[in-house]
């Protein structure tokens, strides 16, 4: 199927271009500072590129827009009443095992646990919980072949709703055990990717998204923050850098050339980075875009485990 993507000659523009998202994101900054939100503020918080975000919301199809509103309505139960009697946790390993199997029963694709850290909140945010239970939910690969159309946008929202249900229910179960727990999904206050990496669920790919061993990049992430004592997972090397250094699929397929072949220094850390100023306007025009995550070789269903194995064994031979 030959795919036709929207033109890069965008039918909209800013008269006064906001402060570059790359500057706000700390591109080139060598000091380690907290992140500042630029886009995707859930419509509640005022952001530098907020007008573009509102424009994006209003040109979205009504179905996608309504699914987003319904998801917000569900998320009112992301926090709630806590049982008076607190369950005593002697064995954090077995508790983590139970929580993971419960999350999977509730629909999670993959689950990892990590301590909550400052790099998962924005600059002025506070770390109010001890632990993070990070969850991945895969999107339907066939539906996501229709990226840049309403169909893929609908699938993205469906995945958000499913993962919301999972984290809401999981947080509720933890609160019933007498421990604080709050679910975060599609929200504005938490950076899920650093937590997912620390929880061993994957690594950062060249396209700036998480690549998980199992689902590649075609998934959504949500998190439950909690004080429930749990044992932790460790970050895991699945060979993403080995692939991304040599592979140029997303770089070449990105219509606006927002993906660089080189890692860059961002807020004191050398990492893969996507040019925000090029990406965000096209993302808006392309109903959420997603070309880079769909063309990623890791995203093909059933390929991740063998690809990871191959990349790691190739490295060992070097």
């Amino acid at each position, binding site marked *: 199927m030959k795919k036709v993507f929207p033109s890069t000659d*965008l*039918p*909209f*523009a*800013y*008269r*006064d271009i906001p402060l570059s998202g790359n500057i706000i994101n700390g591109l080139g900054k060598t000091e380690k500072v907290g992140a500042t939100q630029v886009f995707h*503020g*859930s*419509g*509640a*918080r*005022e952001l530098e590129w907020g*007008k*573009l975000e*509102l*424009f994006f*919301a*209003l*040109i979205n199809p*009504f179905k996608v*827009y*309504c699914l987003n*509103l319904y998801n*917000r*309505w569900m*998320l*009112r139960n*992301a*926090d*709630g*009443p*806590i049982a008076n009697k607190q369950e005593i946790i002697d064995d954090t390993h077995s508790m983590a095992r139970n929580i993971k199997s419960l999350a999977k029963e509730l629909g999670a694709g993959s689950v990892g646990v990590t301590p909550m850290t400052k790099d998962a909140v924005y600059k002025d945010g506070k770390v109010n919980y001890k632990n993070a239970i990070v969850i991945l939910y895969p999107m339907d690969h066939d539906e996501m072949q229709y990226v840049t159309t309403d169909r893929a946008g609908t699938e993205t929202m469906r995945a958000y709703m499913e993962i919301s249900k999972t984290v809401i229910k999981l947080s509720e179960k933890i609160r019933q055990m007498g421990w*604080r727990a*709050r679910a*975060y999904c599609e*929200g*504005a*206050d938490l950076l899920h990717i650093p937590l997912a990496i620390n929880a061993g669920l994957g690594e950062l790919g060249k396209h700036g998204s998480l690549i998980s061993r199992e689902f590649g990049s075609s998934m959504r992430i949500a998190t439950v923050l909690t004080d429930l004592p749990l044992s932790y997972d460790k970050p895991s090397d699945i060979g993403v850098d080995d692939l991304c250094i040599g592979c140029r699929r997303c770089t070449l397929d990105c219509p606006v050339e927002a993906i660089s072949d080189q890692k860059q220094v961002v807020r004191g850390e050398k990492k893969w980075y996507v040019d925000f100023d090029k990406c965000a306007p096209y993302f808006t025009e392309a109903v959420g875009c997603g070309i880079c995550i769909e063309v990623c070789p890791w995203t093909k269903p059933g390929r991740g485990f063998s690809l990871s194995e191959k990349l790691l064994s190739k490295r060992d031979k070097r």
Partner: protein
Amino acid sequence: MQSFEEQFYLENPTRLQIIKRDLLLFLWLLKRALMWLGKGVLVRMAYKDAKKKGRPLIIEEIIQD
């Protein structure tokens, strides 16, 4: 301006706090739904027009503070 979580997430709330929050959230969502149906129509019309004419729509002209 507060985030969505700061506005609508309640830790260990009372029944009354839940009712108040649900009402506020419902109104927040209703406002956003009406925005898509009201202002959104103007935005989409202007957007379509800009596409047809090949002249870019100026975001600040259609989305004000």
